[in-house]
């Protein structure tokens, strides 16, 4: 079924007369401006989050190093760094940039729509997200300190203000921030889903949707399910803190001399609710990147995506399984061991659709004629990091092995390779690829980021990513736990190392290497900022379709920043799935989704359907 009405009547405010044009632009309901606003918010967040992670790394290996204007990093400071780093990266970078940022910028154009379904709601979602970020940052200055419970905020630590520093106003602000974010994210996802359901142009059937759109679609479904549960959990936790309830507090809980006997709750209830959100959150962050990678590999290999339908099915399967396996975070949390077995099986099962995606990526690039533009390099980097990070997933899915590896740096390495590194590679691929669409204005076409600088940036980032996160597997195997402000333990009498100190300080040489690598990785990102700044002022102008892409966002009238009244815009319709390419000995021709030719299509399908010799 194809919807027929995809043309909301008017262009947003940009063309309207307004007494305060600057304000009108800032509070615009234009999805393209909102998309850029989300990306700027994510950029600010990722800079803060990265600096915090560097402080943690430096503190781990040089614990006495005093921070300028602050002094030495105290244990509660370290845990605040952990908490704010995790929260800001998970929510304000990895959820926001791929889903809300690029979703707003590109999604409508990619399905042949002119706007998002609910422009007002869209703007409200962004400003709510911005307020959530400000609230989170403000929490670090709260009396009593920033929240120190980690991004998972396990009660009773987070539920009882007397449980130590960071559990008073800082924790309340943290909860308020996440609650606001959950509301914003749910609203934004409703918008995304409705746009995909209702605003597709004629001919854009479900099977012809670019895989990026399938990624956004599935992530939006997961967001609505997961964030609503998180919001409920946060409200319950807030009631435990201030309304005398005890959803998460057991009877007779004695924290720092304060006895709680008001009810008979269980901390495990929070773990269930939190991880019911927490694990889908991983897929919310990575699914759009997976979709984009599929499209970019096909585009730059000049191939169709291998097993297109299977890729759609695996995207949905990953979404479905993604909400059925939260319990693998709880193997040693106090669950019945039989429940752990069930969650182990559902977790192992998700390895299969993920592996199917990897197979498709390998088959798409297999003996193709790739052109190594920077977006392609980052897409290949995504594949590499996804494989490397993904392969430790089945290991952690086995409760008996998790019994040893849980909460060690092995887990940190696993999820950072997938979420942080593959996730960021997806974002870089998107930025380099869509930069001409982001920078085009009514007076000039978009600009291309510098290729030589892009290549250098890619290689430094790839090497840095592996140099930081591969050795972390080893420190984890050596037994180093997460969330430790220092690795020397309590000294035994005679100031020798205790058994714990001996075990933990064993990893210090490798930790030093990881810290140096992390500084290198962070420094390499300056290349991106140099490239960005340089290109914004004097980068080369791109043609209307510089990558020979076949999806609708590159349609000449879809150029997001060419303000053309809707009445002047030609009706767009779609005639095929994306990524149709054809070779002759001298050139590559391609058939965009919107090209109304049919004879060439037959030829191409014949050529590409043949078996390899």
């Amino acid at each position, binding site marked *: 079924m194809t919807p027929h009405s995809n043309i909301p009547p008017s262009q947003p405010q940009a063309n309207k007369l307004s007494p305060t044009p600057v304000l009108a632009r800032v509070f615009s309901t234009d999805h393209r401006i909102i998309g850029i606003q989300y990306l700027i918010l994510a950029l600010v967040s990722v800079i803060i989050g990265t600096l915090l992670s560097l402080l943690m790394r430096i503190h781990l290996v040089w614990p006495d190093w005093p921070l300028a204007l602050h002094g030495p990093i105290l244990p509660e400071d370290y845990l605040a760094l952990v908490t704010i780093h995790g929260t800001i990266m998970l929510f304000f970078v990895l959820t926001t940039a791929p889903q809300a940022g690029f979703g707003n910028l590109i999604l409508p154009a990619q399905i042949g729509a002119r706007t998002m379904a609910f422009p007002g709601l869209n703007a409200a979602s962004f400003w709510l997200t911005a307020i959530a970020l400000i609230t989170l940052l403000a929490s670090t200055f709260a009396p009593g300190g920033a929240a120190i419970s980690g991004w998972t905020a396990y009660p009773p630590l987070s539920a009882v203000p007397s449980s130590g520093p960071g559990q008073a106003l800082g924790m309340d602000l943290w909860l308020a921030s996440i609650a606001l974010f959950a509301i914003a994210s749910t609203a934004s996802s409703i918008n995304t889903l409705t746009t995909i359901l209702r605003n597709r142009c004629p001919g854009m059937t479900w099977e012809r949707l670019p895989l990026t759109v399938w990624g956004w679609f599935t992530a939006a479904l997961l967001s609505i399910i997961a964030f609503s549960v998180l919001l409920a959990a946060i409200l319950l936790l807030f009631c435990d803190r201030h309304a005398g309830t005890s959803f998460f507090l057991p009877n007779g809980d004695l924290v720092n001399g304060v006895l709680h006997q008001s009810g008979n709750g269980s901390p495990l209830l929070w773990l269930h609710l939190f991880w019911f959100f927490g694990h889908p959150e991983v897929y919310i962050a990575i699914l759009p990147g997976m979709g984009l990678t599929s499209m970019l590999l096909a585009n730059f290999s000049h191939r169709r995506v*291998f097993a297109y339908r299977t890729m759609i099915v695996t995207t949905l399967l990953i979404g479905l399984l993604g909400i059925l396996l939260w319990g693998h975070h709880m193997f040693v949390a106090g669950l019945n061991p039989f429940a752990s077995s069930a969650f182990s099986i559902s977790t192992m099962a998700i390895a299969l659709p993920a592996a199917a995606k990897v197979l498709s990526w390998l*088959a798409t690039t297999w*003996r193709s004629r790739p052109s190594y533009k920077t977006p392609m390099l980052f897409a290949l980097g995504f594949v590499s990091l996804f494989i490397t990070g993904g392969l430790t997933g089945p290991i952690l899915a*086995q409760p008996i092995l998790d019994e040893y590896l849980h*909460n060690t740096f092995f887990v940190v390495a696993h999820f950072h390779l997938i979420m942080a590194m593959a996730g960021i590679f997806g974002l870089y691929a998107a930025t380099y690829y869509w930069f001409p669409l982001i920078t085009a204005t009514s007076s000039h076409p978009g600009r291309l980021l510098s290729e030589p600088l892009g290549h250098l940036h890619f290689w430094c980032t790839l090497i840095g990513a592996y140099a930081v996160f591969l050795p972390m597997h080893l420190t984890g195997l050596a037994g180093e736990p997460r969330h430790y402000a220092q690795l020397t333990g309590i000294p035994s009498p005679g100031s020798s190392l205790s058994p714990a100190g001996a075990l933990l300080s064993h990893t210090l040489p490798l930790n030093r290497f990881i810290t140096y690598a992390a500084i290198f990785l962070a420094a390499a990102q300056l290349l991106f900022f140099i490239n960005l700044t340089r290109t914004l002022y004097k980068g080369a102008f791109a043609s209307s379709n510089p990558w020979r892409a076949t999806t609708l966002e590159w349609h000449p009238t879809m150029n997001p920043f060419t303000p053309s009244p809707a009445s002047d815009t030609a009706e767009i319709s779609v005639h095929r799935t994306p990524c149709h390419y054809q070779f002759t000995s001298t050139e590559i021709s391609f058939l965009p989704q919107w090209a109304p030719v049919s004879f060439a299509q037959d030829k191409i399908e014949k050529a590409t359907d043949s078996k390899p010799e």
Partner: protein
Amino acid sequence: MIWSRLTSAATLLPWSLPADASAHGPALDHHLLLNLWIALALLALAHLILLTGLLARRHSAPNHLWRIEYLPLAALALLFSTLTVKAERLWAATRYTGASPTALQVEVTGVQFAWYFRYPGPDATFGLTHPNLVAPGEGNPLGIDPNDPHSADDHVSSQLVLPANREVDLRLNAQDVIHGFSIPEMRLKQNAVPGQTIHLHFTPTTPGTYAILCTQLCGLGHYRMNATLRILPPDQFANWLATQQKAAK
């Protein structure tokens, strides 16, 4: 042959697994190393295919070919199923059933930021505890009820001392927040959750001194919530226990 060589090579790595001193540990280590080698092999294979595909050039290609699409998936499904079954058997052996009735009983309590270990004494029964009796300053950090006759012979230690080669049944709980009871060298980890008593059983094998850590973020002193496990030969353990009980009286 090859397998044992690979395994021994892995243990020679500079940052390898710490010593393994529990009865269930070697099987766990074996399964872990098997998993790591499989992951490493798949990693190498996938990257080899990726690089070969990129370097060897030609332009015709399938966009749908069942043997590429489904056969590797079937192989992976078989591989992961085998690993799951093997892992589940190991998990079942240690967790599906409790300790034998003759196992040594020790209660472990996590408190911000210390571990306390309570032994039931000759009557083999733990005395009652009440949170409102907790008074660390008065030498009663666990709130043991002095009016309960079973509590008279209980003794509390800051070290976990156990005999070698005898099964131990730990009953874990937490007084305030969630703590993570972990002994890496015993390949043991289990959260201690306030409001719950969780049983954990294992058999230490090699006498020595080992680290007990907290692995669940529990507040600012989390990183120094360490304790020591001492595994003694059975006769030395009996002496230690007798000394403790005498001191408790």
